[in-house]
Each structure stands twice: as C-alpha cells, then as structure tokens.
C-alpha cells in the first residue's frame, strides 16, 4: 500500500473530545477574565472608598486654619463632629465588606453562568450531530436524474427501479396516502392497479429496503474511506470487549 501517494482525505468527523477541549479552553479563559475583572473592581473599590481617617483630618484642618476657633465650646463641637465622622466611617467599612461579599457572589454566579453557557453550546452542537447521524430522517432529497437520494446528509445511490419506488412513496406521503403493493406497481408500470400483482409491488419495496438499509448501515457503522480501506464509524471510547 502506497501511503504517500496523493493527499490524505481530511476526516469529515467531528470528535466529541475535540469540541470538549476547545470548550474547556474557552471556559478557562472566560473564568480567568471574570475573576480578574472583578478583582480589579474590588481593588478599585477598596482604593476609592474614603479613608476612615478622612473626617478627622478634615476637622483638624478646620481647627488649624481658623484662629478664632479657640473657645472651649467650639473645640468640643469640633470633637463631636470628628466623632460622628468616625462613626460614619465605621458604617462605610461595613458597607465595604457587604460590597465585597456581593462581588464574590457575582464572581461565582458569572463563573457558573459562563460554564453553563459553554456547556449549552457544546450540548447543542452534539444534539445537532446526533440528529444528523441518527436514524431519524429530517431531510429527504431525491435526485432522479442521478439516481441518488440524500437522507439527512448521507448520499445513497439507488437503482432506477428503487428510485422510482421511493419517488412514488414520497409523493403518496405528501398527499397523506397509503399505497398497497398493487397500487405501487400500477403507478410505476402505468397500468391500472387492478391488473397488477400485489407481490410485484412487495418485491419493489423489498428491493428498496434492502438497498437503502444496506447502504445506510454501511454509512453509519462501517465506513469506506476511498483508497484507504474500511473503518468502524464510531467513537473508540464506546467500544468495550466482554
């Protein structure tokens, strides 16, 4: 086998692990960003809040600058002012603590929020993949001139007869009709359905089922990579031997 010949086909699979890794990176970056922003906010908060001694300094300045403020009563008044200021600065420091607690809370909440957001995105992506990969059909496209049918995103090549059967069934489904074997045979062959054999229609259905089921199973389970070989199209983590 010549491995160097030609380019390797890029894998068209998306590993769940890969998206989990990028998700983890995003989560880590987001959490670091949030924590650092809130840390900066906390530091700024502690810096910008007035110093507990600010009131005292102000009163002292008043006292020094005014030479007439020398009476006993005036000095007492100034001291009372300073004391009430100190009491207020105690309140301020308790506010500061409350604000800090709230900051910690908001950090926790934001971290949780970003983690959940990323998880949600990853979940959505996985759900999309599951929907596309699963048996549930959410798109059916019949290309009659190429004898192909696209189920979800899988391409299946069918024989002309099988495509004909599928088209008839699809048209009937769109009109919410149920066709019997003889009716199917009648539509395809162009004869009145009363003249047609029920078994002939059943054979057409059987052929369609065989061909489509075969290909579907091969696409879902055993993948054929062009010029390289075969591979099970499943995640290696889910395999277990008993």
């Amino acid at each position, binding site marked *: 086998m010549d491995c160097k010949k030609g380019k390797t086909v890029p894998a068209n699979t998306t590993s769940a692990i890969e998206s989990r890794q990028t998700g983890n990176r995003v989560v880590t970056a987001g959490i670091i960003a949030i924590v650092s922003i809130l840390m900066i906010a906390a530091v700024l908060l502690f810096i910008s809040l007035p110093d507990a001694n600010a009131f005292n300094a102000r009163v*002292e300045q008043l*006292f*020094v600058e005014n030479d007439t403020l020398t*009476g*006993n009563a005036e*000095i007492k008044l100034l*001291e009372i002012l300073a*004391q009430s200021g*100190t009491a207020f600065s105690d309140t301020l420091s308790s506010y500061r603590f409350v604000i800090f607690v709230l900051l910690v809370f908001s950090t926790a909440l934001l971290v949780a929020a970003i983690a959940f957001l990323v998880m949600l995105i990853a979940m959505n992506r996985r759900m999309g993949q599951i929907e596309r990969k699963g048996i549930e059909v959410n798109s059916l496209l019949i290309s009659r001139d190429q004898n192909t049918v696209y189920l979800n995103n899988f391409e299946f090549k069918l024989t002309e007869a099988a495509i004909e059967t599928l088209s008839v069934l699809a048209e009937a489904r769109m009109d919410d009709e149920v066709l019997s074997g003889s009716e199917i045979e009648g539509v395809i062959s162009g004869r009145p359905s009363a003249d047609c054999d029920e078994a002939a229609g059943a054979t057409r259905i059987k052929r369609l089922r065989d061909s489509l089921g075969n290909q579907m199973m091969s696409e879902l389970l055993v993948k054929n990579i062009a010029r390289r070989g075969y591979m099970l199209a499943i995640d290696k983590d889910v395999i277990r031997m008993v």
Partner: protein
Amino acid sequence: MKYFLLSMTILFLAATAAQAACYADYKAKQDDPLRLHYGVALIEGDCTVENAETELTERLAVDDWQMLNVLEVFDEDGLQEREDSAGEYYLRY
C-alpha cells in the same frame, strides 16, 4: 549724678525687658479618638514662634499631645484675654 540716673534708668529698663515673661498660645491634638485643645504656655527660651514651637512640641509629647501650630507669642498683657478660651490648658504645659 545725672549720668548715674540715666544709667540706672537704662539698667532698670533692660531688667524689666529681660524679666518680661514670654507666653505662646498653641493648638494641639490627640488621635484615636480625635481630641483637640487650645492652650497657653510659658516659653522659657527666646520669645519667638519658632522657639515656642520646638519647646512646646517636646513638652506636649510627654502627654501624647501632638502640637499643631503656635498662633503667636506675647507677654503678660495678652494673658488675660486668652484665659477663658484656654480653660484647663491655661499655663498647664
């Protein structure tokens, strides 16, 4: 005699000038909790604001008072008007 009288007068004047006591009024504070006081004190050295400041800073520090500023220096004539304001700190330090 005339010279003697003159010299005596000069001597007497010099003596009274030397005896004229020097006082200063000042402002001081204590921290935690903030306490303030205005006081009057006797200054022993030169009768200048600078000298009063250095002297009072030392004397007040003994009782944990921190000198803020000296308003002015004066002699006995100024004492009377400041006695009321200084209260318990009148000539205490």
